[in-house]
């Protein structure tokens, strides 16, 4: 399927009048997938999702169906499904549009997924800032209860499900699945050590699955149209790499930064960053060139202009030294912007959001911010560049020094920023100039 003839799937109903209401969703064939799923065995639903090759849209790209199979076979007592709506990766806003414009699509996915995972309770963890999402969702959930789509004996199938909306308290770390679970339990969102993984011991010490909002939105469509339809979109498995799970299906790309037309577009997986910016984002603003592009949220690091032909599938950004596709939130940085300022802003964000549990992340993120603050103040030293790299290399899970991935996310912008733009940093430090970008200055 070529991109030109692609008809949006997840955003298909966005923009229609009354797209949030149950009546309009049903008129468009909504909840047919649920009715279909409820007639199947739950393991059959898992098989469909597994065979579709759907990978989690939250950032790590873990195969969704496989995640569901990690739940223990025999469970006495409840299993929980948690929906991660703590969308806080800088540059990302796809969950917001999905929830605000078409809540029933997400909720249908949640009911199907709960059925598949044998959950009888689903917790929708929503970031606090999404007030409109909360109200829209609550209204939709109420409609569902009134129409036998939630509660006892859903659609006469004998299956019971309750959904609770839970609003977070504005912390980035709550997007980490075990941080989310701790926060849901009313505790400080300090990610847990694994094992045990949430599938064995998650929320309230019960088996738990945590899935992203966009992942949930994909589920009804997979059930409805089948796995072949789903696999007709995106990039197939790399036959030379047995560990590659492929990048199938539609994906929401958030475009922001220095472009003419920022926004959210839905495309099959695998569009190149250059095409995305030029064809869907209206090109770099003010006729300038892109200096750097963040492929999938700040924590994935930077691509250079020369690397923009990289396809934005699950494997593409990794090939050019980025952490991964992340949330597919593309942020464009034009050639008038100082990378020192950009990196400072990134570090400031992660220092502010580090939960403070592990020493390397707690201290390392704050230290790198201080160093960049000094460089921006014209008091940098050339040795600072290597020191920043050393700090970046000694935090994160990939050297194995922290509990969760936040520190990797904090380290990647430093690693890629300095490795790819080292000359600019050296020149900046040698010039001894002070940053012109006062908008970014201030206490963190």
């Amino acid at each position: 399927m070529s991109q030109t003839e692609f008809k949006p799937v997840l955003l298909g109903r966005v923009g229609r009048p009354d797209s949030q209401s149950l009546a309009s969703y049903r008129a468009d064939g909504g909840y047919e997938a649920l009715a279909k799923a409820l007639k199947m065995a739950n393991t059959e639903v898992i098989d469909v999702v597994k065979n579709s090759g759907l990978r989690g849209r939250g950032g790590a790209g873990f195969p969704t169906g496989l995640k569901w199979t990690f739940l223990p076979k025999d469970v006495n007592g409840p299993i929980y499904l948690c929906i991660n709506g703590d969308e806080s990766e800088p540059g990302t806003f796809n969950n917001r549009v999905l929830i605000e414009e078409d809540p029933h699509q997400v909720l249908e996915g949640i009911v199907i997924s709960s059925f598949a995972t044998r959950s009888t309770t689903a917790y929708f963890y929503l970031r606090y800032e999404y007030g409109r999402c909360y109200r829209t969702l609550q209204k939709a959930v109420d409609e569902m209860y009134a129409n036998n789509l939630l509660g006892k004996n859903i659609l006469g199938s004998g299956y019971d499900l309750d959904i609770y909306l839970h609003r977070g308290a504005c912390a980035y770390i709550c997007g980490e699945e075990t941080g989310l679970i701790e926060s849901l339990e009313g505790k400080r969102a300090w990610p847990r050590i694994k094992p045990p993984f949430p599938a064995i011991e998650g929320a309230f010490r019960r088996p738990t699955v945590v899935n992203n909002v966009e992942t949930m939105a994909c589920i009804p469509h997979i059930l409805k149209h089948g796995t072949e339809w789903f696999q007709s979109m995106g990039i197939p498995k790399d036959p030379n790499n047995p560990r590659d799970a492929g990048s199938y299906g539609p994906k929401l790309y958030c475009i922001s930064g220095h472009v003419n037309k920022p926004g959210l577009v839905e495309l099959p997986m695998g569009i190149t960053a250059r095409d995305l910016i030029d064809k869907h984002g209206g090109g770099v603003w003010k006729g300038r060139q892109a200096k750097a592009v963040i492929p999938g949220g700040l924590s994935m690091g930077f691509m250079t202009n020369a690397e923009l032909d990289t396809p934005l599938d699950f494997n593409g950004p990794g090939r050019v030294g980025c952490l991964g596709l992340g949330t597919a939130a593309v942020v464009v940085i034009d050639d008038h912007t100082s990378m020192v300022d950009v990196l400072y802003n990134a570090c400031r964000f992660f220092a502010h959001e580090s939960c403070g549990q592990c020493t390397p992340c707690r201290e390392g993120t704050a230290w790198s911010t201080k160093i960049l603050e000094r460089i921006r103040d014209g008091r940098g030293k050339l040795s600072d560049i290597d020191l920043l790299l050393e700090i970046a290399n000694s935090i994160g899970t990939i050297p194995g020094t922290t509990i969760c991935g936040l520190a990797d996310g904090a380290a990647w912008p430093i690693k890629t920023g300095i490795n790819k733009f080292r000359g600019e940093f050296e020149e900046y430090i040698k010039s001894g100039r002070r940053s012109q970008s006062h908008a970014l200055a201030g206490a963190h």
Partner: protein
Amino acid sequence: MVKVKVNDIEVDADPKDNCILAARKAGFEIPHYCWHESLSVVASCRMCLVEVGETKPDGTVAMGPKLVPGCQTPIKEGTVIRTESAKVKTTQQMTLELLLLNHPLDCSICDQAGECYLQDYTYKYGKAHSRLDEPKIQREDKYHIGEQIALFTDRCVMCTRCVRFTREISGTSELQVVARGSHEEIDVFPETPCNNKLAGNVVDLCPVGALCSKDFLYKKRVWWLKHAESVCTGCSTGCSIHVDQNENKVYRLRPRENPQAQGHFMCDEGRYGFKYIHDDRRLKYPRLKNPSANSNTAVASSRPSDLSFADPWPTVLSEARKRIQTAIQNDPSGFVAVLSPQMTLEEAYLLASYIKGIDPRTKLTLGPVPVSGSDDLYPKGPKGEPPAAGKVKFTIRAEKCPNRLGVEAVLRHFERSVILAESLGKSSASAWYVVGGYSAGWVNEKLDQAVGTPSLLIVQDIFPSPLSERADIVLAAGSFAEREGTYVNHAGLAQAAHASIRPPEEARADGRILMELAGRTGLFNAMALRKEIGTKIAELSAIAVGELGDYGVRLAKYANQPVAAKS
């Protein structure tokens, strides 16, 4: 047991051990801050990162790709741990540099200096300088964190041991982490300071100088302190402790880890309850009330116990011996000795064998057993309720004496039964030998009346009491810190306590007094006496080994009792 290889040294380790414990068995230290044996694992300080791999069936070793926290990583047959590789060392250096980033380096005025894991690990695993060029984050000290605890906020390494202690062991949850990232701090909610009865333990748990004991603050540099292994005599739990003293003054008590007794902790009652040993009101000199008068003409007026009235020990002891002999000859069944549950086994044995050796018709009794309220169990529930059975992690016992079981065993051997001194009627005997040793007023009305005004009253005690005031002979004895001997706790665990200081002025440790009184030759030697007691008294045969080790030995009678730390 499984075979584990640590830096090419093979050891047998418990499959329940983590890498830190397994490495310890092989003689290697894996540095750590947040991990503590009796607290939950959080693996957050990242100081214990090591390389871990496994031995494949063909004998080759496959090391994991990443460093893993030694505290969190379990071991199994064939686990290979490397604690000294270049990768591990670099990471340790970086972690220490990060931990010291905002640390004020105020060792010169820090109480913890000398027993600080930041100092020790920096010497062993760190590097000499910091590359931080920017100002450090400065934080307010928090003296309000607890009545006995001060928090030097900027020295904290955020290991959260203290937070976990109040959640998991005391159950009182006063301490929290507030704020986030590098700005986070330990704190309490307003108006709810950390004043629970186990609060002092957070000071011991703190691996750095952040939490300090106000009681000990700025009193002594720790390197001047000498440590004696001892047993807390505050209650029948019998916590293993260290008595830390310098120049004959005890500065603090610290719990000594003993899984057989109490685990890793001790209560504040015991921790701060030692002050009485330096009280100025202590009996400091032996005293004869009326050396020339015979036993029928007791003088009513009592003499103050100051130096001018002190009588030399040889005079006092020979007089005491003489009068005891006479009293027993005159009325053997009218001679009563009161053994205190504060006495060590050795002291009880010396006194009992001496008195019974003169005449078996004499009577041995047990002194008052102080009981206060009921057993206090931890961790507390959210409303302060005690934990369910099987979930108990610490107990402060209602019985406020260390050796009731031990003294009772001695009494059973010599007297065939345990008679309470208080249960004897008014003025029930003609001669009394009463041993005290309690920290506070202990002579109750019943005992006072039972003793009455006999023809001979000998009191061996550390504080003046109504009895010592009217005693014919007062023997100034030693407190727990001045005595050596064995205590049997509530669960039948016999533990050895060592003397740490000398008794004040002319006072003498009870064992020394009794050796001389009984006319035994040689110095008081707890080890030799334990062997003697163990062979003579069947119930106490377990202590015949003499050396009881760090954890003590269980008496056979109590062998089936659950391990004390868990009950």
